[in-house]
């Protein structure tokens, strides 16, 4: 009688081939679940500053615009979040003799600036932001000016508080 001394276990080899794949898939699943927890994707509000050597308008060879649109953002006594304008009157925004307050001040400012940009996009917009205004409110005004698609947006800087040249943006 011939006694078999060995046999081939093909079926076991085939089933073992799936083990690393399952391991890797589950490990990747766990990794992405862990990595996506508590992650808030930040976006970017780009700002192109002009270097400090261009603060003199006399050296600008281009045609001078007829005027300037000053956007003055004043600190208020309402909410200070500057994000949604919930609660209180919040800061006050003044543009060309108009004053925007209340929760929908950003929307009103955006609509007014878009109307202004349609008529005169070459008009330089100067953001005069009160030092006590929250950053969220300042960026909301800057965002409204960018959305209106003006040619140039400048930040006014108080030389008393900062001993440097005023930065300017040129989107």
């Amino acid at each position, binding site marked *: 009688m011939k*006694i*078999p*001394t*060995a*046999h*081939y*276990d*093909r079926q*076991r*080899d085939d089933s*073992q081939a799936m*083990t*690393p794949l399952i*391991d*890797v898939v589950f*490990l990747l699943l*766990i*990794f992405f679940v*862990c*990595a996506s927890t508590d992650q808030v994707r*930040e*976006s*970017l*509000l*780009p*700002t*192109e*500053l*002009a*270097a*400090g050597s261009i603060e003199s308008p006399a050296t600008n060879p281009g045609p001078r615009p007829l005027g300037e649109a000053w956007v003055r953002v004043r600190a208020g006594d309402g909410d*200070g*979040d*500057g*994000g*949604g304008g919930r609660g209180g009157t919040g800061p006050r925004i003044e543009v060309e003799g108009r004053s925007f307050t209340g929760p929908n001040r950003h929307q009103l400012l*955006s609509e007014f600036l878009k109307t202004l940009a349609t008529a005169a996009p070459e008009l330089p917009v100067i953001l005069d*932001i*009160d*030092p*006590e*205004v*929250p*950053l*969220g409110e*300042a*960026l*909301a005004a800057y*965002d409204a000016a*960018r*959305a209106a698609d003006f040619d140039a947006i400048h*930040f006014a*800087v108080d030389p008393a*508080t*900062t001993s*440097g*040249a*005023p*930065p*300017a943006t040129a989107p």
Partner: protein
Amino acid sequence: MRIPTRVRRLGISLDLTPLIDIVFLLVIFFLVASHAARSESTEPVQLPLVGEVQHEQPSVPGRLVVTVTADQALHVGGRIVTLEQITSLLAEASAAANSGGYEVRIRGDRRVPFRAVEPLMVACAQAGITRIGYAVLPH
């Protein structure tokens, strides 16, 4: 009577399963550890909410991330720094900034007064760094 036999595999087989397990576990460990370390140095701030945002992050060779927390403290690399230290950092990076390869990103809390951020913009302009960006959240 059944005689027990010895299982023989076809050819030479190398079981790579433990190796793959260990390697991937190490990879995931280092990724999670580096993520935790980075999160630890990222100070929690409430970013401003704006409508017009840029989702794709432009790739620049050099970048300085300045975090302005609600208590108006300036953080760079997880450490509290002064404006003078940031100014010196910007002065060192001005050479790279001349070629447009340097960016300053300001992660400012939305409640912080503008006077805490304004000197940063002035310092960037004086150092010749024109590319700055604010970390924001879309509405």
